Structures are given as C-alpha cells and as structure tokens.
C-alpha cells in the first residue's frame, strides 16, 4: 500500500502542473454551469402570432382581443393578406397564423358555425404543439362563452361546478433552471471524470512511461488504485465547485441532505472512472481515447433524460437507457436536490450504480495487462 502513496503524490504533482487539466476542472464547470442553463431554456415563451382578418367584424374583433389578452402570444402582424403572412412564417418571423375568412360573422349567426384556419410553423415541434393548443383553447373558451350565454337565457340547466385547484410541488415557481442545473452538473462531473482518467493513462502509453512502470514489481491493483484515486478526488472537487456555483448563481439549495448526494456521487464516480479506465485500455493514442469517450458521452447525454424525458422514449430506447449510468445520476440529482428524496427513495439507483462500478472496473482491470 505504501507504493500507492508514491503514485498519488506523483499524480497530483503532474495534475497541478498541467494547465489544461486545471482549466478543465475549474473553468469548464463554472463556465458551463453559468452559460448552459441560460441557453438550455425550453420554456416556451414569445410565441409569435399573425392574425389575418379578412372579415373585420365585431366577432372577429372579439376573437382577436381574446387571443391577445390571453398573454400567450406576441402579435407580430395584423393584416388581411394570407400570402404575406406565409412569407413571414418562411422567414421564421412568426410561428402561427390565425386566419379569419371573409363572411365569418355572417356564417356564425346564420349557420351557427364558422371556420377559422390555424397555420403552424411546425419545424419546432414543441412550440407548434403548445401554440396551437393555446389557440385552440382560446377558441374553445370563446365557444363556451357563447354557449353558456345562449343556454343561460333559454333554459335553467344544471351546470356542474368542478373547480380544479392545481398545486405545484418541489419547484413551486416553475423555474426551468432549477430543473436543468442539477442535470447539467451531472453531465459535467461525468465528462471531467471520464475524459481525465482515459486521457491520463493513454498519455503514459503514448510517451512510453508506462513501460517503465510495467517493469517495476508494482501490483496491478495498486497501480490502478493510484490512478483512480486522484481522479475520484478531483471528481468530488468538481462536484463541490458545481454545487457552490449553482448556489451562488441560481440560489439552488438541495432540499435533500448533502450526505445522500455525496454518498451517491462517490459511488457514481467509481463507475465513471471505471469507464475511463476501460476506454484507456482499449486505445493506443490520446486521440483515439478522446473520440471513443466523446462517442459514449454523446450517447449518454442524449439518452440521459436531461433534455427530453426518458418516459417519452419508445420502449426499446427505455431499455437502452437502463444501461446508461448517467441517466441514474441525473435522476438522483433531481430527486435529492428538488424533491428532498433520501436513501430509501434512491436505493434502486444506488444499487444499480454500484453494480456499474463493479462491472466496469473489473472489466478494465482484467483488460489492463502489464505485458502483451
């Protein structure tokens, strides 16, 4: 075990002498945590609406007022030419067109029914969905108003009154950043830990120093322990910096206990470092290690449930995401930080992550050989 200490001293000296690593563990997390949540804002706001009113009647006026006063839309143009509205849509200046045709009011009174057209720029699916749903809702509500005012005058029908009282839990002010920051921090810790471990060992391969180590009587497990421990500590350090940044910048205070978080992260890092180690045993150059790692990170991030919910995936993809260690970390971060979950609630995630750690490290140690 004494040899491990010498390895640790050496690793830390090298790490602190390497400016690019220092940048990676200090600047990268801070910058990303500040910029990413600002950018990764999926809250749909500013839906740009164009109303093409060819009727110009009091009813079409009513509908227009309803749409604007709903607060969901920004009216970018109000005209009577559908073609020029479509051109604005083409240029991404508008998301939605509401066209009220000529003779709208007349038909509504005479035939009790009239049509309007909602044209949606559907390239941005989320926005299209929400925008058209909002507009539909507004028209429905307007319909209901007419209906109730009509029936109220004719019959004294019984109307059930069901008041829905929505109550938001855990993220009461619906702050989107509170949702994103813990997930982004999870990605960050994974990337720093994984890349550093993989690159570090491959670098020794590339410059040949690993040969010098391989002819020494050092035990394989001691060598690997000496390699993993520094990055495990760095990983915890990055995590702590990240927690501090998210508190200072976004005011995020975990509602669960820090102990739960740290215990989980400590175990999770073992899995990530195991992956880095494994990648390093399969690559001969830093370039290779970097690309293989990049590939895994890409898949992990996309399939991790950060940007799109895992529950929305098709069944096969849900199965695939079960093999993604990052998805458990993102879940746990959100559960503990936002909901205050404790050990009891995250035990299955904790167990699976530990399993990842064991399998990956075992595989890596088997694959790392001191001689070829």
């Amino acid at each position: 075990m004494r040899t491990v200490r010498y390895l640790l001293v050496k690793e830390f000296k090298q790490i602190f002498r390497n400016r690019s690593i220092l940048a990676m563990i200090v600047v990268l997390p801070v910058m990303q945590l500040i910029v990413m949540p600002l950018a990764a804002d999926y809250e749909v706001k500013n839906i740009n609406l164009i109303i093409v009113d060819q009727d110009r009647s009091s009813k079409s006026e009513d509908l227009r007022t309803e749409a604007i006063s709903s607060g969901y839309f920004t009216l970018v143009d109000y005209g009577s030419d559908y073609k020029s509205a479509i051109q604005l849509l083409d240029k991404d200046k508008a998301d939605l067109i509401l066209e009220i045709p000529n003779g709208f009011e007349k038909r509504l009174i005479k035939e009790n029914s009239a049509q309007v057209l909602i044209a949606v720029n559907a390239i941005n699916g989320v926005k299209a969905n929400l925008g058209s749903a909002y507009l539909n809702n507004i028209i429905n509500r307007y319909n209901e108003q007419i209906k109730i005012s009509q029936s109220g005058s004719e019959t004294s029908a019984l109307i059930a009154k069901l008041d829905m009282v929505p109550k938001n839990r855990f993220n009461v002010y619906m702050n989107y950043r509170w949702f994103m920051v813990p997930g982004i921090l999870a990605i960050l810790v994974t990337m720093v830990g994984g890349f550093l471990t993989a690159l570090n060992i491959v670098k020794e391969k590339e410059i040949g120093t690993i040969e010098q180590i391989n002819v020494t009587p050092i035990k394989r497990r001691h060598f690997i322990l000496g390699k993993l421990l520094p990055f495990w500590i760095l990983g915890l350090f990055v995590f702590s910096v990240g927690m501090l940044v998210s508190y200072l910048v976004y005011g995020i205070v975990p509602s669960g206990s820090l102990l739960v978080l740290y215990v989980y992260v400590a175990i999770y890092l073992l899995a990530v470092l195991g992956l880095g180690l494994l990648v390093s045993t399969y690559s001969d150059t830093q370039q290779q290690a970097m690309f293989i790692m990049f590939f895994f990170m890409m898949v992990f991030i996309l399939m991790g449930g950060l940007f799109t919910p895992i529950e929305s995936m098709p069944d096969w993809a849900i199965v695939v995401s079960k093999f993604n260690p990052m998805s458990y970390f993102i879940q746990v971060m959100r559960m503990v930080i936002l909901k205050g979950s404790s050990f009891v609630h995250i035990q299955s995630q904790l167990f699976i992550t530990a399993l990842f750690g064991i399998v990956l490290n075992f595989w890596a140690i088997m694959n790392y050989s001191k001689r070829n």
Partner: protein
Amino acid sequence: MKRLLSFVKKEFKHVMRDRKTLLILFGMPVVQILIFGFALSNEIKESGIVVLDNSHSETSRKFIEKVSSGHYFEVENLIDDNAELENSFKEGKVKLALVIPNHFEERVLAGEPSNLQVVVDASDPNTATVLTNYIAAISRDFQMQMSQLPVTPQLIQPEVRMLYNPQLKGAPNFVPGVMALVLMLICVMMTAVSIVREKETGTMEILLVSPFHPFMVIMAKAIPYMFISLLNVTTILLLSVWVLDLPINGSILLLYAESSLFIAASLAIGIFISIKTSSQQVAMLISLMGMMLPTILFSGFMFPIENMPLPLQVISNIIPAKWFYIIVKSIMIKGLGFSYIWKETLILFGMTLFFFLISLKNFKIRLS
C-alpha cells in the same frame, strides 16, 4: 502538384490506419440520427399518477375511470393518506396526484362547487404545465358530461394546418444540427489534434524542412478530413431521406456547395487552433470548449436561440454553425433557393477567409 498528391496520399494512409477512430467518425452521425430520429421525443404519454379518493363514491370512480381511459395518464396506485403521496413523489414514480374531496358526489350532483386538488411534480415545469392542462381539459369535459345541457354543435371550428413538418417530427430541426456538429467534430477537432500530434512527436519538423511550402503541408493534412466530411454529409442525407422520410426539398447541388463552404470554414478554424497550440490536450480542450460546446449551444438545433438572454443571442452570431444551420434548414426543409440565403453564405465565407488569413499570418511568424 504531383508532390502535393503524394503528401495527401500519405495523410490518407494515416487516417485510414486508425480503425477505431474511423469507426467512431462514421458511426457517430449514424447513431446520432437514429437517437434523434427514433429515441428522443417530447411527446408526453402515459404519465403515472396516484389518486387519493376521499369520496369513495360512484361519481369519483367514474371520474378516475375517465382520467385513466385517455392515453395521457395511467393510475399507478390508489392511496389512502398523504404520507403515501409524499413517498410516491420522492421515489419519482409519479408526476401527478389527484385528491378527490369528501362529499364529491353529493356536491357535483347538487351543482355545488367542489374542489378537486391536483398536486403536480413541477420539477420539470414544461411537463407539469402540459399535465395540468390535460387534467383541466378532462375535468372540464367531465363537468359538461355531468351537467344536463342540451348538446349544441361547436360554433367556431378551427382547422389546424401544420406547415413544413406535418407529423411534428423533430427531424427537420436535428438533421441540419447533426450535420453541423459532425462536420465540426471532424474538421475542427480531428484536424487540430492530429496536426498538434505531429508537432508533439516531432515528425512535423521533418515535414517542415521539406522543399514544399510549409502551409501546403498543413493543407495536405486537412484534405483527407474534407473527404471524410463530405462522405458523412452524404451518409446523413441518405439516412434522413431513406430512414427518416425527410425529403430534400431544395437543390442538392446547392446543399453540397454550402456544406463544402462550412467544411472549409471549420478546417480553417482547426488549422488555426493547431498553429496556436502545442499539446494535444490543449488542442482538444480548445476545440471542445471553444467550438463543440458553442455549436451545440448556439446553433439553434437543441436550444431555442430566441429564449436566450440578449448577450448570448449576440454571441451566437459569431458561431459559424449557426449560419450553416440556417442555410441547411432553408435548403433542405423549406426548399428555398440561393437568393434567400446569400447573406448567410456571405457571412460564412467571410469567416472562412478570416481564419485562413490569420492562420497564414501566424504561420509565417512562427517560421521566421
């Protein structure tokens, strides 16, 4: 010319020999397209809910049945107390809880107001909003159903037309995005790292003392990546047409021309990074932080630019991928011609020129 050719041949051999990296370079766009195309979606389906039924009546059962009959909600559990409710949320299995009050049935039948409490896990605000809207629609429907109203036809009937992308697929957004990302990865990161690698191992010096113009040596190193990039563009286009059913609405020729321009811009940046750095790790770090991340953040394919604070929106203008993204979207999805995108093309061209010129300038300084 012949000498340039022999240089390029040597570089090709280098690139082709590293099978693992090559596999990743060609596999990356395929996997990305498949993930974006088939795995990711924002569609909300079958969210787990729990119900705390304090009324235990015919009407409350009817209501629960109505909630679970649509494909939005799946009733996971009927629970008895608030503690259980708390636990279900903390285990993350449910997103919404419905609390039906005492005397629900009596009140509804008597036309008296009754409060239906809906507790939502608002960790994810978007999902929470949508779920609340769904449950509101269901309860309004239930309310009408329970009222004795003569059924009247809807008065204003909206007709919804989804333009450009009728099935609301994400493909039109991400295909141009994946294209920009993969080209960046190959042209900036690969090029920069592999040139710096030669510097690190010292083989660069040998090339630089050859009778060839040193800048040509660097160019020769960039050419194989240009070919790989164009191959990847083809793969992505084939996948999007044949696998994602996303047709190319505009001119293919124009699309390739613009892609080549973007590749040139990326190569120029990659070469610039390689001239400015001397270790692989630094080159990697700069291309990752300086180019890849901003590409993901600011090209507009994953994150809506208009939602960003103004300073970030301004910054996004200096990211080449943003302009390329607009160009590809215009040609591929909207089928627009060159007259619509000449401005973006000009900006991209200007960036390319800028980076080539400063690389050239820095290169000369290094040699003297």
